[in-house]
C-alpha cells in the first residue's frame, strides 16, 4: 500500500495535512483529486506554496485518478490522496479504487448540514455516502490531526 492516507478535507493542502499528518507519515507526494482544480493552474500554484520541499503535488481529475491510482498503490513512494468532498472520494471507490479507510479532516458547515464534530458537519447526502461506503467495507473515520481521537462517523450518525 503506497497510499498511506485517503483524506476528505475541504481545505485540501493546509497546515494539518503538511504538518500534523505529513510529519508523521512522511509522504513523498500529495495527490489532490478534484475536477476543477485539475484545470486551474493558478489555484494549483497557491496550494503548492504550502508543500514541504521534499513533497510534490499532483492535481488530477477523478477520471485521471481512477486510471493512475492503481500504479501509485503499486509504487514504493508513500502518498496522500486528498479530496475536498466525500462525494469525490466516494466516486473513486465506486469506480474501482480500493479504499479501506477514509480519514475525514474537514467538512464544514453548509446548507442542510448538521455539526457532528467541531470540524465535521454532515447533511443527508454525506450521511447516505457514509452508509454506502461502510456497507462496502470502507471505514469512514473523522480525525483532524493524528493525536486527536478517531471518531467512526457511522456511529456518530446513529447517535
Amino acid at each position: 500500500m503506497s497510499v498511506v492516507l485517503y483524506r476528505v478535507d475541504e481545505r485540501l493542502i493546509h497546515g494539518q495535512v503538511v504538518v500534523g499528518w505529513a510529519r508523521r507519515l512522511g509522504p513523498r507526494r500529495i495527490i489532490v483529486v478534484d475536477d476543477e482544480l485539475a484545470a486551474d493552474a493558478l489555484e494549483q500554484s497557491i496550494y503548492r506554496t504550502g508543500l514541504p520541499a521534499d513533497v510534490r503535488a499532483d492535481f488530477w481529475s477523478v477520471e485521471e485518478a481512477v486510471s493512475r491510482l492503481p500504479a501509485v498503490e503499486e509504487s514504493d513512494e508513500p502518498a496522500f490522496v486528498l479530496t475536498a468532498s466525500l462525494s469525490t472520494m466516494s466516486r473513486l471507490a465506486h469506480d474501482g479504487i480500493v479504499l479501506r479507510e477514509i480519514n475525514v479532516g474537514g467538512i464544514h458547515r453548509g446548507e442542510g448540514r448538521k455539526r457532528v464534530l467541531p470540524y465535521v458537519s454532515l447533511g443527508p447526502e454525506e450521511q447516505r455516502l457514509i452508509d454506502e461506503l461502510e456497507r462496502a467495507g470502507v471505514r469512514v473515520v473523522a480525525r483532524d490531526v493524528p493525536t486527536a481521537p478517531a471518531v467512526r462517523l457511522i456511529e456518530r450518525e446513529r447517535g
Partner: protein
Amino acid sequence: MSERCGVVVAHSRLAEGLLSALERVAGEQENLWPVSNHGLGGDELYEVIAGILEERGGGRDAYLLSDMDGGSCGQACRRLLADGRVRAVFFGVNLPLLVEFVFLQAGSAEEFVKATVEKSRKALGARP
C-alpha cells in the same frame, strides 16, 4: 515524540495563542507549555518558568522560546539560561519555529538548535 520540552514565554496571550495554533496543525502537545509575563515582575516571571521546568521537565533537555530578545520575557529567559536551567533560548518564536521545535530530529542539542533556527528562518518571507 521527543526527549525535549520547552516553555514558550511571551507578552500578553501570545504564548497561549501560538500553542493553540500549533495544536490545530500538529496535534496535542504534551511537552510545551505557555507562560505570559502579564502582571509579573522579572523575578516572578523567572520563578514561574523555573517552577514549570522543575515540575514537568522530568530531566529532559529543556528549551525556552521567547517572543523577542531584550524584553522582559527575553531577559528572564537569558537569566534561566545563565543559571544552567535550560539548554538554549530561541528568540522570535513563531508558528514555523514551533513546528520545527516539535518535529525536527537532530543529533546533539547544538545541532538541533542550529537546524531549527535555519529551517524556521526560511519560512519568513514576503511577496510584493
